[in-house]
């Protein structure tokens, strides 16, 4: 019984049947304090520290070059940002 | 089914009980307390009576919590009160300051007992006069009424609620053990004859065009929770939006507004009674239970040919300075008896245009009239 359940669970997913969501990253640069949470905890490694300073001297995030289509709109960055400085919106 | 309201008419009642009946008539429906002699009868009776009129009376874990709960209840729209005595009053100082800066109308009854710290719980004192005015840190003003009889305790409790509601500020009824525990005649007027003041409430629609705190106003209307005002109410010095600020200029504006609510209304707040002062040369200035001994003393002095009179101060804070100034210009001496070692005598002396003699009596019992008579005789000589 246990073995059967395991077998079913391990059935490989047919990726072609799933649509992967695509997210657009929005940032409010003035609010960022460069804590690094967003780029550290993005599961798709989409974000990085930019070289742009906001008026308070913090370098806010940007999407890594070449990763423009990698955001899956999981919202981790917006949940973990202590400054309400970043969020994403799903695009179709 | 009865309304639960006290029956109008003549009653024979304990001061502490009369206070509760008055609170109910004033519209108070929230009591949070912590028991302490000699005020516990207020709390106990509130626990019986408040639920009968649909009100809430709860026991908190200490007096800091009691006053914090009152302010919360007040912002929820209720008229709220507590009762305590010296040690509890000390713990209340923190949140009396909070009620002041948050502009929460609440009523605190202090049935004073004897001595510092735990002192003598069962006996009388008048040692909290300065604390009632100056006990909470920073710059604040309090309104303090001192009853000398059960009837006054009743009347002043209603007045305390009215003042609190009108000025959006904490008001203290500074009773004492004698007034609290004494049984006496009290006349309860029909409800429709009692003047009841209700606070001005903020209309949330106005907040799109005005700020919640207008420091040039007399008293701002109160934003009540759950009505859509969504205003920040802060214990930090705050600006006209209710936001914390460290601006000295805003701090000045805010404090002038808060203090002004009481200072600008001082003359309406002052209550006092005069007995035989018309031709008096020596006037005794007394408050609370001491006014009872003082009246007896003044009568005795008159029978000995001394032109004595009594000024009973009912409002002791804001201090009725003009009353003292005016009276002291036409009498020779003021005599100030207190059941402490000198408290209200200080502002009396500050404002008097004539010599002031103090009569101090160790906390524990009422000052005997003959002690005051002796002082009046010395003053007259």
């Amino acid at each position, binding site marked *: 019984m246990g073995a059967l359940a395991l077998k079913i669970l391990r059935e490989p997913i047919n990726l072609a049947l799933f649509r992967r969501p695509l997210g657009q990253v*929005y940032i409010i640069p003035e609010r960022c304090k460069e804590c690094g949470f967003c780029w550290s905890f993005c599961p798709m490694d989409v974000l990085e520290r930019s070289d742009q300073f906001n008026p308070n001297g913090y370098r806010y995030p940007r999407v890594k070059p070449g990763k423009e289509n990698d955001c899956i709109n999981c919202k981790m960055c917006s949940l973990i*940002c202590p400054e309400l400085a970043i969020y994403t919106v799903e695009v179709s | 089914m009865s309304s639960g309201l006290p029956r109008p008419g003549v009653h024979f009642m304990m001061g502490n009980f009369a206070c509760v009946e008055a609170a109910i008539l004033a519209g108070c429906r929230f009591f949070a307390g912590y028991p302490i002699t000699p005020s516990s009868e207020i709390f106990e009776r509130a626990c019986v009576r408040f639920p009968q009129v649909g009100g*809430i009376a709860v026991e908190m874990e200490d007096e*800091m*919590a009691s006053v*914090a709960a009152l*302010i919360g209840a007040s912002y*929820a729209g209720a008229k709220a009160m507590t009762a305590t005595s010296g040690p509890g009053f000390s713990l209340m100082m923190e949140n009396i300051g909070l009620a002041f800066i948050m502009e929460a109308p609440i009523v605190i009854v202090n049935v004073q007992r004897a001595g510092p710290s735990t002192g003598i719980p069962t006996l009388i004192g008048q040692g909290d006069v300065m604390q009632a005015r100056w006990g909470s840190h920073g710059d604040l003003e309090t309104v303090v009424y001192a009853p000398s009889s059960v009837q006054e305790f009743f009347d002043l409790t209603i007045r305390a609620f009215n003042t609190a509601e009108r000025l959006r500020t904490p008001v203290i009824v500074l009773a004492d053990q004698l007034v609290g525990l004494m049984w006496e005649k009290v006349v309860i007027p029909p409800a429709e004859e009692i003047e009841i003041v209700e606070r001005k409430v903020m209309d949330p629609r106005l907040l799109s065009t005005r700020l919640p705190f207008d420091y040039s106003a007399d008293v701002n209307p109160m934003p009540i929770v*759950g009505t859509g005002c969504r205003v920040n109410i802060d214990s930090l010095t705050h600006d006209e939006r209710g936001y914390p600020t460290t601006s000295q200029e805003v701090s000045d504006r805010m404090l002038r507004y808060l203090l002004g609510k009481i200072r600008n209304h001082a003359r309406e707040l002052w209550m006092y009674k005069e007995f035989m002062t018309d031709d008096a040369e020596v006037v005794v200035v007394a408050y609370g239970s001491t006014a009872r001994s003082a009246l007896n003393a003044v009568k005795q002095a008159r029978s000995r040919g001394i032109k004595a009179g009594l000024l009973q101060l009912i409002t002791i804070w804001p201090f009725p300075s003009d009353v003292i100034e005016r009276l002291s210009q036409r009498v020779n001496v003021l005599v100030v008896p207190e059941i402490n070692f000198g408290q209200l005598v200080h502002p009396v002396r500050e404002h008097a245009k004539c010599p002031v003699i103090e009569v101090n009596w160790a906390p524990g019992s009422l000052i005997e009239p003959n002690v005051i008579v002796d002082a009046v005789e010395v003053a007259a000589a």
Partner: protein
Amino acid sequence: MTQVVKAQRHPRDRLLRSERLPHIWCPGCGIGIVMAAYADAIEASGIPPEKHVCISGIGCTGRVSGYMHLDSFHTTHGRAIAFATGLSLVRPDLEVTVISGDGDICTIGGNHLIHAARRNVDINVIMVNNFNYGMTGGQHGGTTPLGAKTYTSPYGNFENPFNIPYLVAAAGASFVARWTTLHVRQLINAIKRMMSVEGFAFIEVISPCPPTFGEFNNFPEALDMMEYFRKHSVVDHNADLSKIDIRLQGEPLVVGNFVDRRRPSYQELIQETIRRASGRGEGI
């Protein structure tokens, strides 16, 4: 897709006094995460914002109330729960949430905390535990782990801290949870759950405080603390609460929704008393 789009407003701004942002908290402070989670939970609760009340005591965390665009109160140090008790007794229909620091809630306010839990007052309490008094520059309090260095424990803390969920559960709360600032989704769900629990609902949120605690305790960057949460957190909703104290020595950091039970709330019992007593006044 473009790289990033610069924006002026955040979707949560309608629940915040966004004109006051950026807030006062340090870079990497976890309080902002908790505040945003609270805003998310309000949004998800289905209860309109004007029916939510946010009450704080004093401290860095105590500043949350001032940023929430709700009926909000920034009270005195330690007294937020007592304040909330009075308010919610008069308006039991409102959703009252206290958000404050560990020092505020469980040290200076510890007595109010246990009594509110014992009475099962129907309010929500979110306590942000950063293991120290952040606002006053980093002193130890009732949650500082044994041995931890702060300005008032320069040789290492010689006090044992409270195990808060254990304490609050023992005192009688209806709902008790612990999450970290890394477990944001679970935190939002727990806050949302608190809003439907009748009775005292409590969440301890473990949070980084880099400058005044982390600095002296091997977490100089906020990310170090977050990384510690990631490595050591163990979700166990059925944990033995007596064994979940936090030492920050690499032991499992147990998180979860530990207690969720139905007990009559203080408000319910008081309303019942009023029903029994009302109209009984003989009119003296």
